[in-house]
């Protein structure tokens, strides 16, 4: 049964190939069946493989498809690796992926590039599955670049508008910066450890390297570069809000549920390596904490519904990085899964709203949709509650709570990390319910067009359900649960030790966490529903307006990069146009051109000269090989 593993990435890949090679010749119905069906079958295959995995006592399973080549010591294999961690990731990708495909079948129905859309989406799912199932870093890199390509193609899906193309390019370049570091890290690891197989690599690293020494720190830092780019964390985060230019299902699947969390997955996958680089772990935690706060503030003032969600995604991934940084890997993965549920839900519901309002993105022009779209409202409310970690009934509460607890209790964590997480939780409640209040409550401002049909409603409903019951998987012992998810992953991701004495204050911490999220929600109702004039008053002050602008532009990182990096680089390049740097490059070009001309000049077309060249060659050869 475990052999079905290969089908999981193979089916979407086949779907991609069929759709791509048919070049739009298929009818819409057929496209939908192929595009959605391939991912659905992949989900079935994943379930079958998972069942087999369980039957064999949850032992890690390796499936070798083939050896790509075998030259001397270099033997890269196409091989999949199934353990608790990749099982969770595979489940999320196929499960959420299937639901979003189903949703897209209706959502995209009027689009010209229906077939192209599903081809790219299938390509993405296949690449993402290769990424999570890869047993070596080379194959992982293939998936890594594959999802990058699919993301690029899908952000720029409506390429007719040049702005979308620019957004796609920005995403490609920003993530590429990280990928370069990633590839260099890969080479460092291969050079030092002689293998790219993840399990061997971690084992070798632990055998050869001393914790905190140079090589693991360097390799960890370089790989982290790739993770930061993919997961839109500081300082490579600026592409994600712009990536919302893609169709909403793309935002839900790629830029919320799966691809952007690949960095989290990578760090967790290589946790054995990062355990050897405590400095990098600390860096991860700090980056996570800073990102979660900065993007939460930025989310507070956005007016585009999708951009609010994008910043919130960055913020939530910040939580996952924070968890990874303090060594709470299973907490990170739990939040990864729960986040996939509720964030996909929020995006899909937002898509329904946007479509109902004739492509309206501005929350300032929305309102009162609660009565007109009750199903969407309740779903969005559930997703929002999960996002703000509404206590006890939502899954988001349990996953975020675990991270907060670990950030405090882990030997690598501390009160500062905990406080950052707590402030973040407060802000999350605030911006989430600001969004809900603006969109669904208050007076209605416009008439709505089409309501979601059942193809769109079913995925939203399922995800809403998952956003509630998902938490049952991992109820901490404090609330009388068994923390099954953490135990299940314990085989792969070791549980973090606790600092002495923290157990005693656990209830206090919990109370604070509950208070923070409820406080944020309460403040949101107070500020945005009951006393909006207060907000206006603050906004009308000079300082308030500037702050809103600053946050609204995502803390001005784009301006910063534009000013400091891009403009400086351009200016420097202009100033140096005739300088030695160009001279070097030009010199190489000119040199090649000259050599070409010189050699070309020898090709006179005269056969006697050719014979002469043979004789001259013979003469030189005799001197070299016989008379020396």
């Amino acid at each position: 049964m475990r052999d079905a593993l290969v089908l999981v990435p193979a089916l979407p890949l086949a779907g991609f190939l069929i759709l791509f090679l048919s070049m739009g010749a298929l009818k819409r119905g057929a496209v939908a069946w192929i595009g959605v069906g391939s991912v659905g079958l992949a989900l079935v295959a994943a379930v079958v493989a998972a069942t087999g995995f369980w039957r064999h006592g949850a032992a890690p399973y390796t499936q070798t498809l083939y050896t790509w080549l075998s030259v001397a010591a270099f033997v890269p294999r196409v091989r999949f690796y199934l353990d608790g961690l990749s099982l969770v990731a595979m489940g999320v990708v196929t499960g959420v992926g299937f639901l979003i495909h189903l949703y897209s079948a209706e959502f995209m129905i009027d689009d010209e590039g229906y077939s192209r859309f599903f081809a790219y989406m299938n390509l993405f799912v296949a690449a993402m599955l290769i990424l999570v199932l890869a047993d070596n870093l080379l194959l992982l890199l293939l998936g890594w670049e594959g999802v990058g390509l699919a993301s690029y193609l899908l952000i720029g899906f409506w390429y007719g508008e040049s702005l979308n193309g620019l957004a796609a390019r920005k995403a490609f370049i920003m993530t590429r910066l990280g990928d370069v570091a990633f590839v260099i890290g890969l080479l460092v690891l291969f050079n030092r450890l002689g293998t790219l197989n993840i399990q061997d690599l971690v084992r070798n690293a632990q055998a050869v390297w001393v914790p905190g020494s140079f090589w693991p720190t360097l390799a960890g830092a370089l790989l982290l570069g790739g993770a930061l780019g993919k997961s839109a964390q500081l300082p490579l985060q600026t592409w994600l809000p712009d990536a919302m230019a893609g169709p909403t299902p793309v935002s839900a699947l790629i830029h919320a549920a799966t691809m952007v969390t690949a960095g989290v997955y990578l760090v967790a996958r290589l946790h054995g390596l990062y355990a050897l680089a405590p400095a990098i772990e600390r860096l991860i935690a700090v980056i996570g904490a800073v990102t979660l706060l900065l993007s939460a503030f930025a989310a507070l003032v956005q007016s585009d519904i999708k951009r609010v969600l994008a910043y919130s995604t960055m913020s939530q991934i910040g939580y996952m990085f924070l968890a990874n940084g303090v060594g709470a890997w299973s907490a990170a993965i739990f939040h990864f899964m729960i986040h996939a549920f509720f964030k996909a839900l929020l995006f899909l519901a937002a898509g329904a709203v946007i479509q109902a309002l004739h492509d309206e993105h501005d929350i300032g022009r929305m309102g009162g949709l609660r009565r007109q779209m009750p199903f969407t409202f309740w779903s969005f409310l559930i997703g929002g509650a999960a996002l703000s970690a509404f206590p006890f009934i939502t899954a988001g509460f349990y996953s975020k709570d675990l991270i907060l607890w670990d950030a405090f209790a882990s030997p690598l964590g501390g009160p500062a990390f905990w406080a950052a997480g707590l402030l973040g939780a407060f802000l999350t409640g605030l911006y989430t319910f600001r969004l809900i209040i603006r969109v669904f409550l208050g007076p209605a401002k416009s008439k709505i067009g089409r309501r979601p049909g059942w193809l769109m409603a079913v995925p939203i409903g399922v995800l809403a359900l998952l956003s509630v019951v998902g938490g049952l998987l991992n109820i901490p012992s404090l609330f009388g649960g068994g923390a099954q998810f953490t135990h299940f992953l314990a085989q792969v991701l070791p549980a973090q030790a606790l600092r002495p004495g923290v157990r005693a204050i656990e209830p206090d911490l919990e109370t604070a966490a509950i208070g923070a999220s409820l406080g944020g929600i309460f403040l949101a109702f107070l500020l945005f529903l009951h006393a909006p004039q207060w907000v206006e008053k603050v906004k009308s002050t000079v300082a308030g307006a500037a702050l809103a602008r600053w946050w609204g532009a995502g803390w001005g990182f784009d301006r910063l990069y534009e000013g400091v990096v891009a403009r400086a680089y351009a200016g420097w390049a202009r100033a140096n146009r005739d300088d030695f740097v160009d001279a070097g490059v030009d010199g190489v070009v000119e040199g090649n051109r000259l050599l070409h001309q010189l050699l070309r000049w020898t090709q006179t077309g005269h056969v006697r000269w050719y014979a002469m060249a043979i004789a001259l060659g013979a003469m030189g050869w005799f001197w070299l090989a016989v008379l020396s």
Partner: protein
Amino acid sequence: MSPADFTALSPILCVAGTAVGVMLSIAVRRHHGVACGLTVLGLLAALAALRWALPEVPVQVTPLFTVDRYALFYIGLILATTLGVVLFSHGYLAQRTDRPEEYYLLLLLATVGACALVAASQFASFFLGLELLSMALFALIAYPESGRVPVEAALKYLILAGAASAFLLFGMALIYAQLGTLAFAAMRAVAPSAGSPLMDLGLSMVLIGVGFKLAIVPFHMWTPDVYQGAPAPVTAYVATVSKGALFALLLRYFLQTAAGSAIPVVTGLGWIAVASMLAGNWLALLQPDVKRVLAYSSIAHLGYLLVAFLALGALAIEAVTFYLVFYLATMLAAFGIVTVLSGTGADAGKQGLEAYHGLFWRQPWLAASFTVVLLALAGIPLTLGFLAKFYVIVAAADRASWGLIGALVVGSAIGLYYYLRIVVVMYREPVGAQTVVVPPWPARLALIALTVFLVGFGIYPRPVIGLVQAAIGPEQAVWLVPGR
């Protein structure tokens, strides 16, 4: 000769018999389809005979031929490539000549020569195989009944090949004068323990003759002119079969006679490899004619092959064989596309870059196929070309030949430029009125097969590697015992 000997030689006999058959059919009645069909059937029969011959090998058939797995592998490769050339030729000839039948006869004779060459184990068969190949090619290059360039190309090739043959034969005579034997295997035994000047001079002259046919610097100058002037399918044959067969024999000769222990000769070959890789790529850099670009690039590829060759060990056999499989398939596909796109007018020889301008928008499949071929030639991953180059680098690294690897990397970097230049031109927006050439179905069949081969086995190369490794039997291991 025993019946087993005949069985072992049956693939070659099949081709020779087909040549006679085609000749007789011409005598009875001229018919393009009949001649072409007979040729295809004969080649298929010869390929089938490989299976029959396999259990009999290795066997020494008279002092002239060693039929072993190595020979049979290359005979198979040559036959398959020739089959490809025939598939491309049919449509090409049908449009251009009213007497196409002798073409197949000559092609078959050349193939007999190439097959004899890879099985040769003695100077007489070495030289006869080579000359049979060249003799048929002289006439094939000048085959078209009109136009100036085919005659020019053929005469250039004939004059220079004649001179090169003289060098080759003189070298053989000197080696014979020194050693008293013409057989490779015996040479290893009687070779003087210290290198003798006469021996080195003879070897050098042999290498000059071979170097000319392989088109390596500085014996390369005929290549672009002949490639351009010859009919496109003949160019495909010159670029693939004639070079591949000779290279396979050269490797056999070097390893079997332990000629590689002549250090100055090996050093000299190293310089030739570097010069070929660099000069070939430089010459192709800004070349506007696609046929000439491919000619220059083939010079560079022979340089890469020499790098693998100079590892002179087990890995050299494997790397050279793998590279040749890639090189033959890719060059055949490249010239197949050139064949399909060849004009029928007086300027049929020339094929400027403008013929490819916007090809993608007119004929996406052809352009996609050519893109794959060019990427393979450039050595982009997920094509067979990447693996082939990788093999070469590993073989060279095994010998710690860092200088050669450096030159290879520089050469490949230059190569990338002109391959991608053609790709870019194909994807440009077309301008003006465009003619669409519909390739005849045999050519289309061959192109699809080759493209799938290049990509499919680039992703999953295991079968090809397995086949290549199977081509090296225990008798090849004997070659590797240090000689002298």
